[in-house]
């Protein structure tokens, strides 16, 4: 049955005709407190990670590590590979400000130890202090992961409290590409050591039409 109002079809054939917005929430996953990875796999648990959307957005919210000062990081895989070891070329820089205002660790700089030309997990945020109120939050965009022609560009930014004394606010910016032409179907998030004591990851698709 269609719903027609003032001669305008609002819904029909099981779908809305009216615009419901172009940022579509796909999935929210929450750590059970002892997970070492949090993965989003196309076709599992209602997850869509294919050509349905041309841009995907991932927001990680208050991801709190069990370890003292690990990095938060991600990797991806095509359908046939959940080993999360794709070739990545990336850049990484960050701004910092120390809580005591002394300027001792203030700055803007490139971090050659956090960028990558390799197949490891890509760092999104480093030295995250696991104080009770410490966590990392940020956003990652992946462009056209379904392409079988182009490398897969990604861009991210994050914010956290770094393990220093006094503590430091850290704002990383990451850009790069997954240097494969195979379509991507899976993505994995983790801390470089320890567990995800608490973590929420939200996945969105941005409509193409």
């Amino acid at each position: 049955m269609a719903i027609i109002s003032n001669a305008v079809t609002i819904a029909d054939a099981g779908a809305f005709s009216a615009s419901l917005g172009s940022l579509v929430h796909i999935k929210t996953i929450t750590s059970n407190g002892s997970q070492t990875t949090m993965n989003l796999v196309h076709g599992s648990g209602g997850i869509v990670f294919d050509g349905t959307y041309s841009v995907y957005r991932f927001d990680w919210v208050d991801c709190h590590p069990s370890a003292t000062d690990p990095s938060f990081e991600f990797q991806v895989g095509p359908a046939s590979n959940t080993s999360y070891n794709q070739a990545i070329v990336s850049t990484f820089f960050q701004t910092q400000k120390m809580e005591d205002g002394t300027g001792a660790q203030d700055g803007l700089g490139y971090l050659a130890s956090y960028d990558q030309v390799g197949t490891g997990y890509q760092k999104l945020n480093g030295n995250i202090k696991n104080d009770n109120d410490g966590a990392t939050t940020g956003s990652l965009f992946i462009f056209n992961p379904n392409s079988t022609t182009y490398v897969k560009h990604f861009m991210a930014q994050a914010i956290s409290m770094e393990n220093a004394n006094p503590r430091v606010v850290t704002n990383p910016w990451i850009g790069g590409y997954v240097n494969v032409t195979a379509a991507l179907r899976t993505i994995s998030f983790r801390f470089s050591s320890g567990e995800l004591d608490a973590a929420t990851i939200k996945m969105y698709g941005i409509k193409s039409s």
Partner: protein
Amino acid sequence: MGVISNGTTLLDAGALDSGVPTGKLTLIKTLTASSSSTLSFIDGAASVVLDDTYGVYIIKFINVHPQTNDTQFGMQFNAAGAADFNETITNTIFKSRQEEDASPAELALDVGGVLSQGTGLCKISHPVGNLANEALSGHVTLYNPSSTTFLKNFISVVNHSYPSATADVDANGQTMNIFTNGYINTASAIDEVKFQFVSGNIESGTIQLFGLGASA
């Protein structure tokens, strides 16, 4: 006919009620390049809205691929009533880059390609490679283009492949993360934007215009 549930109007008069959450990001128009010299969003043409309907506009680039190797991607604007895409712009550019052989990697201000009250193409990338798997992706955010009081701020972040295996650059490919921020120095409303490479056509790629949130 209206649809009312538990006292709440969900739709009426041919539209969802304004109280129904529909998300605040609205796809306005998708352009697909096919050896196109430029791609433009013109308010009022081809269903494009670029006015005070939205306070913020986001334009996304998805695998924009140049016909010519080693050429920069850029944008320009028109104020309402203008047609020459030569608005006055002042902007900054900085880059974060990494070569596929891991050297060099750097963060640096780019002073060579910026506009200082310039009216030319505002470049938002370094030269882009055109090997089969090379392209540019990213987004530019344009704030309150319909203002007739303030200049128009914009922030652009793109990632692209730097040309590889060419005579004038490194033999290895690079990832280039380019940040271009600035303002269109006019108090007139902006209602047109175009994108192009400095040389050659946009061989392929998608550019999408979104509106964000309510009117300004």
